[in-house]
């Protein structure tokens, strides 16, 4: 199991994570090592074993469709890095 720097940079782009070219080599080597060790999971036969997403076999609870929380926008946005008139500011998307 080996990951090239090209593979690594592709994954980093999917994760929206900027990785400098010189660091990509280190990450690729580390991930290759980790995945090589983890590849032992492939040795176990799991044919016909249904995947388990959740340990507790719970049923989703339903509630009445009524407003339960009052959201204070100012308070919610107090932790945002850049807001104006109640809006989050981002770089221009449409010219």
């Amino acid at each position, binding site marked *: 199991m080996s*990951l090239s720097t090209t593979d*690594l940079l592709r*994954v*980093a*782009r*999917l*994760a*929206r*994570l*900027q*990785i400098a070219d010189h660091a990509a080599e280190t*990450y690729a080597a*580390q*991930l290759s*090592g*980790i*995945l090589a*060790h*983890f590849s*032992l*999971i*492939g040795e*176990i036969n*799991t044919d016909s*074993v*249904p*995947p*388990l*997403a*959740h*340990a*507790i076999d*719970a049923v*989703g*609870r339903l*509630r009445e469709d009524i407003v*339960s929380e009052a959201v*204070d926008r100012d*308070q*919610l946005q*107090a*932790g*945002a*890095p*850049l807001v104006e008139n109640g809006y*989050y500011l*981002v*770089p*221009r*998307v449409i010219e």
Partner: protein
Amino acid sequence: MTNSVIPQTLAAQSAALAEGQFSSVELTQHYLERINRLDGQFNSFITVCPDFALAQAAEADRRRAAGENSPLLGIPYANKDIFCTKGINTTCASRMLAQWQAPYDATVVERLHAAGMVMLGKTNMDEFAMGSSNETSWFGPARNPWDTNRVPGGSSGGSAAAVAARLAPVATGTDTGGSIRQPAALCGVTGLKPTYGRVSRWGMIAFASSLDQGGPMALTAEDLALMLNAMAGADRRDATSIDRAPEDFMADLSKPLSGLKVGVPSEFMDAGLSPGIRACVDAATTTLQQLGAAIKEVSLPHAGVAVPAYYVVASAEASSNLSRYDGVRFGHRCENPVDLADLYSRSRAEGFGEEVKRRILVGTYVLSAGYYDAWYRKAQQLRRLIQQDFVAAFSGVDVLLGPTTPNTAFALGENVADPLTMYLSDIYTTGVNLAGLPGLSMPGGFVDGLPVGLQLIGNYFDERRILQVAHQFQQHTDWHSRMPVAAE
């Protein structure tokens, strides 16, 4: 008031408060003074909040004067910095949230404060709870009170160190793959990861949602039971919290262990276990036998793949959960982004540390097209086999006993360059999270002056049983009451 008149456990402090031996304000001042004097060497707190704590303590004293008397009223605690607290920073030990304040309290915090507990501060941890040594914290590593050149474990390392150093009688922790039990073991304290769903995850910053579970850390099993009584319970804001009739986790503590069937998983006792820890587990089985328990060897055939299965599942969920940190709604934002993609990718690159990035990369990789079946789906299939192993084991025994970790606390820096070795320190704990079972770590001896943790694993919702076994063990041993010299 001198140290000698302040008892160390929550239970004893609760009794002393009820008798009026001291007030909650005095007790809180005692801990704030200790934190101020001693925490420079341990770095167990990221934030200390004296004004907030003293106001809560004064309120607790008022409630008591008005006739209220409940076990947690006026008791100080240390809160892992992963639980959201309104008005006090919640950092998750990340640069990403270094200045962030939550707009609400986590359900756990709400419950503990409603019970009258006093929050001394927020404890250090591995960044976003990803780590087993506390070294990934943006605020620097917490240190082990038994040897400050060694790690306290992680991710709840600050909480474990604070309780071990008597900077707080009890603390909160969270456990995704061992993050309560492993640091409890390495610092010589007692910690409980409840059954998945027992404790609400609302306001507990998400790492891997199908594994994360909050729980208490303390000096004794009795104190864990008192804490869990307040922490546990269904929460309509967490759809995965389990709706069950309330239980008193103190109820079975004093019952004798006669007739108890204890299983020791042979896979936990193999060559990977250090001989000193093996001797402690053997000694514990002898103690339990003397208390009337029967010991039986059991097998968990898939224990060897728990760590890889865990890291695939946990990293996949983490990569999804941490996508919310985008530099827009909260947290760190890069300077002068040229476009939206640059804003996202650079804010995240600057805000997250190395280990968090590694996990996001692993998680994104195992979920990506072409790799999903071989990794993520495979890991979830193994998760079922691991769960079935536990179910089979519990058909013949009441609890499982084994080591919490293969080794005692390692030196700071020892495993930093080798993530894989670090991951393998969770070899006995991760399976419990994959299966969603309750697990407890308690002190069981020392090797070369460093604490050893014994792990008790219970069946689903059988916290009362493992708390009972731990309490009975602690009535007949004194490992849990040993105190590090640096904390004197």
